[in-house]
Structure formats: structure tokens, C-alpha cells
């Protein structure tokens, strides 16, 4: 491999990390409240509200059922509107975020569902308001599970980020596509694939470790 390609790969690693963590972070900013809403408004929960629950549920399900590659293309005008461009690392953060929000929302919802109802009953009996119960009882109790879900999400975004290469996004995915696939440079292809695998594994292990450390039961 030439120095040029090695440099490209190093830049690619940084770009991939940038895309992954920025998108994961942004998707939690939107996905966490959505997940909490999905949980709290469902039947028998603290803020039961059929209309809100069904509304969010439908949007989340539609977004989740779109193949990510299609979403990338569909979002090009929106991406251009937000970032001023539809190609490059920064631009690919937009579709990555949008694509991950519904996954985050569902994962958060399922983590919160794991909290025993008895804890909510105890909190209610202490005179806590629904919002207080969500913030101070349910979310802290679900924290280890949320962390574990977070690791899975970051790993998923990393996988998606490779796809962003198809529409001109940066990162390892783009390198794998350009040099490995279009130019038949299989050494580049396999190097980038190996790097992606290692990164996913590291993120997964780190997340599991954090969750385990956090979990007190």
C-alpha cells in the first residue's frame, strides 16, 4: 500500500469516528426524549396518551422500516438544507442521525420497560410527580441497560457510516468502496474491513464494560 493510501486510511479512521460519535450523540439528543415519551405515554404508564403514543410510534416505525441506503438518498435535499452540502463527512452526519433516532427511541423505550413497576408504585406513594418519577427513578434505574443499548447503537451507526461512502460521505467506508471495490485493491478493502470490525468490537466491549461497572445488581 502506498503512503498516500495509508494516510487516507488514517484520515478515514478519524472521519469514521467523527461521523459515528457525532451522529450517535445527536441521535440520543432526539431519540432519548422520544423513547421516554414512547414509554411514558404507552398503555398503563405514567402519562398514558394514546394519540401521542400512536403518533410517535407510526413515525418511528416508518423511519425504521426504510432501508438506510434509501433514507440516505431521500434525505439529500434535507441534508443540503442543513449543512449546505450533500457530500462529505459533515453532510453524512445528517442522514446517520435521522436514521438512528428511531432505533435509539425504541431501544430507550425497551430499556425503560425493564424497570420494575413496584419502583414506580413506591415513588408514587412517596408523593413524586410523574416527571420526577421518570427523571429520578426510572431513568437512573434503567441506566445500565441504557448504556448497553448505547453501545449497540454506536456500533450500528458505525456500520451505517460505511454506507455513507456510497453517496459521497467520507470515512473508511468510502475508502473501502473507492479503492477496494471500484479499483479492485483487495488489500485496501480487507484492511478497512478489518479496521471497521475492530472498531465495532472495541465500542461494544467498552460499552459492555461501562454498563457492567454501572450495574449494581
Amino acid at each position: 500500500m502506498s503512503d498516500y493510501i495509508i494516510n487516507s486510511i488514517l484520515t478515514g479512521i478519524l472521519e469514521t469516528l467523527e461521523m459515528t460519535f457525532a451522529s450517535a450523540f445527536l441521535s440520543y439528543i432526539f431519540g432519548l426524549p422520544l423513547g421516554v415519551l414512547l414509554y411514558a405515554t404507552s398503555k398503563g404508564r405514567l402519562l398514558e396518551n394514546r394519540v401521542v403514543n400512536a403518533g410517535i410510534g407510526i413515525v418511528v416505525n416508518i423511519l425504521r422500516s426504510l432501508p438506510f441506503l434509501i433514507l440516505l438518498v431521500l434525505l439529500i435535499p434535507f441534508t443540503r438544507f442543513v449543512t449546505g452540502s450533500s457530500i462529505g463527512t459533515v453532510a453524512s452526519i445528517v442522514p446517520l442521525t435521522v436514521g438512528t433516532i428511531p432505533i435509539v427511541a425504541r431501544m430507550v423505550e425497551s430499556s425503560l420497560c425493564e424497570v420494575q413497576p413496584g419502583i414506580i408504585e413506591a415513588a408514587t406513594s412517596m408523593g413524586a410527580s410523574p416527571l420526577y418519577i421518570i427523571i429520578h427513578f426510572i431513568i437512573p434505574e434503567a441506566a445500565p441497560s441504557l448504556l448497553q443499548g448505547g453501545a449497540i447503537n454506536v456500533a450500528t451507526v458505525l456500520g451505517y457510516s460505511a454506507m455513507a461512502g456510497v453517496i459521497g460521505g467520507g470515512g473508511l467506508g468510502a475508502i473501502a468502496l473507492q479503492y477496494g471495490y471500484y479499483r479492485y485493491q483487495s488489500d485496501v478493502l480487507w484492511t478497512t474491513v478489518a479496521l471497521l470490525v475492530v472498531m465495532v468490537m472495541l465500542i461494544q466491549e467498552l460499552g459492555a464494560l461501562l454498563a457492567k461497572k454501572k450495574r449494581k445488581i
Partner: protein
Amino acid sequence: MGNVYELENVYKTYRNDGKEFEALKDVSLEVREGEIFGIIGMSGAGKSTLVRTLNRLEDVTGGTVRFYGNDLASLKPRELREVRHSISMIFQGFNLLNQRTVIENVEQPLRIAGTARRERRNIAREMLKVVGLEEKENEYPARLSGGQKQRVAIARALAADPKVLLCDEATSALDPKITGEILDLLKQINTERKLTIIIITHEMSVVEKICDRVAIIDDGTLAEIGDVRDVFSKPKSKAAKKLVFPSNPFDPSGPDGTLIRIVFDGTRASEPFIANLVEQTGKKVNILSANTRSVGGIGYGQMVLELPGDKEEQKIIKDFFVNGGLSVSEVDYK
């Protein structure tokens, strides 16, 4: 002494998929200040629903629940939360936050009430001392035994300085020894802090050990209510008899056999009743079971006897016991 709770014709009906289920039917009772009030019943009798109407975790569908004269149903959400600060509750499953330390758990009600950080830590420490767990303040609940977890829950319940403590099957997940310790602690809290305690249980032994009065709930209705001593020695309702009588593995030897239960309190335990009976009347009885229990601090003995088939003889024997001041009741063994 006033009443903490007054329940008037309380009904609770659950509607589920068009089906109706009446969990509580026309329950009226009052709980007096400073007492330990037991609510006992078989599982599914409605006692857990009943206790949940006392802090409005369940809304009643008919009747009124008054807490110090205030109808709970009339309270707005904010007012209800305020009232709940005075009504603490402990649970069978403890319901502690697993991701929080013991002392953080105890501080929870104070955080909700908006107590300042330093003050709530001091109160929490004090409460942990009351339950004897001051050394565990930085442990996580997962590292505690069941009895210790319930002690933490009690400390948490006391932290808000409540007027009443509701115990929902609080000892049902614990073994008999630990149950005894927790009940002793509750009794001590009742005496020292003059705290009214309401205990939901399916175990008569719990009621006998610490309750002053008891309500027996059967199939959603109030079957019987009264002083524990009276209910124990002279149960009137079928549900009460079922709970009070020792479960009897023996059948009478003949089809005409009659079983009776005699109860004598500690003051008479020194008299040899059975020997006297034989000596004075010449009639014999068959002892099927006998035990002693402590009810409200007084020792009670009870025996289940099989009487001979002859009605005349039965009457003589029963009269002998009644004249001796014992409470006699027939056991429905069928």
C-alpha cells in the same frame, strides 16, 4: 384519639375488556390514631386493593376514603402528592432503587419533598440508626439480605415523618425469624413514634403478634372487624374461623363426631382443664391439636377436641368448658 382513616361504603370495580370485577364491595371501617391495624384475607380477597385506596394508588369507584377528615378523591394531583408525604408505604418486594446506595434510597422521600441536601442526609442517617443499619449506608441494595432490604424500606418510609405507615405484605417474602424481627421493629416504631401502622397480610400469626385491631376481608367484603383478642377467641364469620382455627389434618373418627375448639388465655393456662373434665364429669375427649400463641402480648392456648357422638354427653362437656370461662366454638371441618 381521632381517626386516621374513615372508609364509608367503599367499592372498587375493575373494568377490563368489557368484563367487570368487583374487588371491593361496601367496605366501611375506621383506623384509629396510634393503633396497629391489621387487614387480613386470603390472596385475591381484595386486601391489597383496599390498602391502595388508602393513598389513592387506586381510585375507589364508590364510597369515600377520608384521611384525617379529607376525602382523598376530592384532592387535586398536587394536593394528593402533598398528602402522600404523610402516608408512607412498604412493600412485599421492598421496591428499593437498585442503582442507588442505601442512604440515597432513604433520602428519596426527602428529595421529593425538597429538603436541603445536608438536612436530608442527617435525617436519613438517623432513620438508618432506627432500623439498625447505620453501617450499611454506602452499600447497594443488591448486597443486602431480604430482612435488611425491608429495614431500608422502613427507614425510607420513616424519613418523610409520616402520620401513617402502610405495610403491604411487608413480611411475606421473609422467613419466620426475620419476619419476627421486622414485626418487633414495627411495634417499637409504633410505640416510640406513636405512628399509626396498617398491616396487610394473609398470615394470622402476623396479626396475632402485633395488631391491636383487625379487619377480615373475604371476597371483597368486610367479613369481620374488632379487637384481635376478641376475633381470635370468638371468631364469628366463616372467613375469620378459617383464618383463626389451626388447619386441622384430623377428621373425627365417626360420622357423628363433633369437633370443638376451646381457647383459654394466659391467666387460666395453669388449670388442668382436660383432667378436671374427666375427673368431674367422667366424660372423655380426644385432643386433635393443641398449641399456644401470643396474641397482643398475652399468651393464648387453644385446643381442638373431638367429642363423643352422644348429644347429651357433648352438651355436658361443652357446658363444663363454658362454665370454666373458656370460649368454645364448633369447628366446621367439612
